């Protein structure tokens, strides 16, 4: 268990330095442990098929290859027996394009709609105790059992294999997160700040957007990141509700399977590449995650 508070309290400078070193060491240890499976994944992505399940395992590939990455974009390019086997699907560009269109749109809709509703719920208790809970139940239902009924409905709406169709599904199914996560952050904002602004004559809209929103920026960023990740990595509904036009990256990833089983190399390579946009997004939002504030700034 790693419940450590930091050495801000230490009075003595010696203990302060020692604690700081301990802190850095713990951080490095934790980061090191966390990174191991990811490093293994990266290692697989540079290995030829004969090394994917070999024992004793080697971290550095014995015959490193870029084929796993190349085959994602140019299936015909790699040569050789092993490589010929990897020619199983079309290039990944289309699926990336689809993911880049569908996921941000769905995330934006989900977080916006959820945030607005969360404010109403948090401040005005609209829907009482029932409505927010009801929204949460959308996450309690096993998605598998919902797939075919939703498919039937979508057939009637003619939304199968369309970007709009997938966007709506992703937005709808992540609304519960958006609502509840932002609700939690909104409730962390002291009410008297908002009340002070109202007393000063601001409309509720202004309070929402100019007072509350900046304070919960971090929470919104975290919610947006999480919803983005859920949508970006979602597989089951992407598989069922698309056929050729709108397949996303996770579905494309499932294509790398063939005569000798799952192609770990290309799947690892695509997994790594697919995570890059998310990593960039995560890095960018970190700025928002640590804006503390003091009452002093708000007080007039």
């Amino acid at each position, binding site marked *: 268990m790693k419940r450590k508070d930091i050495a801000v309290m230490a009075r003595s400078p010696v203990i302060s330095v020692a604690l700081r070193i301990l802190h850095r060491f713990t951080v490095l240890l934790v980061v090191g442990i966390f990174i191991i499976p990811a490093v293994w994944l990266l290692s697989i992505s540079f290995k030829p098929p004969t090394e994917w399940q070999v024992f004793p395992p080697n971290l550095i590939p014995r015959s490193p290859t870029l084929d796993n990455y190349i085959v994602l974009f140019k299936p015909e390019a790699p040569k050789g027996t092993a490589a010929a086997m990897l020619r199983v699907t079309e290039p990944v560009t289309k699926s990336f394009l689809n993911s880049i269109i569908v996921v941000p749109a769905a995330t934006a809709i989900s977080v916006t709609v959820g945030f607005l509703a969360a404010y109403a719920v948090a401040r005005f208790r609209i829907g009482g105790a029932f409505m927010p809970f009801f929204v949460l139940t959308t996450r309690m239902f096993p998605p598998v059992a919902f797939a075919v009924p939703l498919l039937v409905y979508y057939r009637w709406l003619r939304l199968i294999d369309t970007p709009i169709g997938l966007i709506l599904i992703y937005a709808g199914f992540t609304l519960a997160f958006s609502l509840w996560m932002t609700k939690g952050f909104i409730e962390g904002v002291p009410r008297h700040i908002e009340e002070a602004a109202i007393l000063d004559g601001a409309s509720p809209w202004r309070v929402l957007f100019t007072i509350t929103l900046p304070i919960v920026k971090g929470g919104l960023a975290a919610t947006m990141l999480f919803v983005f990740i859920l949508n970006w990595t979602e597989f089951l509904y992407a598989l069922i509700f698309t056929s050729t036009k709108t397949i996303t990256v996770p579905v494309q990833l499932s294509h790398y399977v*063939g005569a000798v089983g799952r192609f770990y190399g290309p799947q690892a390579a695509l997994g790594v590449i697919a995570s890059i946009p998310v990593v960039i997004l995560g890095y960018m939002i970190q700025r928002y995650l640590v804006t503390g504030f003091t009452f002093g700034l708000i007080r007039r």
Partner: protein
Amino acid sequence: MMRKIVVVSLVLGFIGFIVCAQSTPAERALAGLSSLMEKGVIKPGQTFKIMIHSGQRNQLAPAVEELSKLTGLNIQLVVIGNEPDIYVKVMNEAVVRTGEYDIFLTFCNWIGDMAEAGVIVPLDEWIAKYDPEIDHGPNRYVSPLDKFTTQYGGHYYALGMDNDALVLFYRKDLMEDPSEQAAFEARYGRPLKLPETWEEFDLITEFFDRPEQGMRGAHLYAERVFAYTSWAPRFIAKGGIYFDPYTMDPMINSPEGVAALEEIIFLVRNHMFPEAYTADWSAAYTLFPEGKVFWTIAWASLGHWASDPETSKIAGKVGFAQLPGEYHDGVLYRATPHVVGWSFSICRYGKAPEAAYLIAQYLNDPTVSAAAITRTGTLDPFRLNHFQDEKLLAAYGPELGPVLMLNAEQSFPDISLRGANEYLDVLNLNLQAAVAGQISAKEALDRVAIAWQEITDRLGRGRQIEAWQQEIKRYPKHIRELWVKLGKMDPHTAGLE
């Protein structure tokens, strides 16, 4: 002048006769497609989509491109990665009927479910009209594949495109090594040779089990998805049958079934890596080419993989053999499981099913399919001419060809009834549980029997009995004769008279 006309007409007539008599399924398909186009049933540039598994794309893509050029149609391959997902998508199509797909390439034992769900159309009429040469002619399918990759309930529903009879792959260098042979004979009192019975198989496995050298005796499938492929050949060779032919009562917990399972459990416990039941089926493609096991039973594609120096440490040392069987009254009965096996079926809700059928027939043509199968992928040779095709045999290994054919001739199908997936999944999970030591062999098979009864009742026993009796007739002749000999059924039910 008159003589010239007579000669020319004779020659033309002769040529015409030759062309017609020797036209191929591909040519007939092309002729059919252009006739449909003339009638306006299909238009140039019309799109047809074939749902396939990713493992076949490399094989079919060039043929599909060629056909698109020849006909002016736009034929596309739609790839699905996980095989169970193909079943899901086909069944979803049965419900929502989008007409998105025209042709499905699926496991042949799903044909029952797909036909019952109404999502595929019977092909009897078109097969009679266009003749894809399934069961006659010099290029026909290897028998009995012609029956169980194409039919359900007495009708044709599919064109088989694959041969998934398993093959026994072994270390030829060790098997033929004189010092090994001497040691074996000294130990067991009989010569070391390819096994005819499973008992011999088990002995040889024990002999070559050398954990201290890092090599185990065998790798057989005992995992979550394919455990039944190790159990079933022993069960059938002993004279077992899945269901009673008259009442549909499960008979897998008969003494033959229990004995077969106990043999497997013993082998896994003592002479195999635990990967046999903890890893997925691709473990065979790692363990055997690494030289970590003496022999394994797997799909033909392993042959290529294990013989290529690029992918295998034992290239050049690989031998191919028939699966063993059992003796009954001095006669050897071998049985090989035919596991999976891909076949084309035609979607009812496509815009032009007849045209879709012709596309499938073209791809199924002896020459076109030979070229396709020569390329790397999951489809394996299934027509007689494939086994004479030099390029194809070179790709598989010339020695693999004849063995594969023999195994195919002795192969029996997966359960192909309605609810096939249910029956097989329940069987498989209990087999794996028994191998893992959670329950005894008898207990496991008893549970399967109970579960199977429930499934049969739920699906309607009468119809299952009918379908099962049809399926029995698709088993190879020698197995049916064995069943009659052992008194399991009368010759008429076995289709022997």
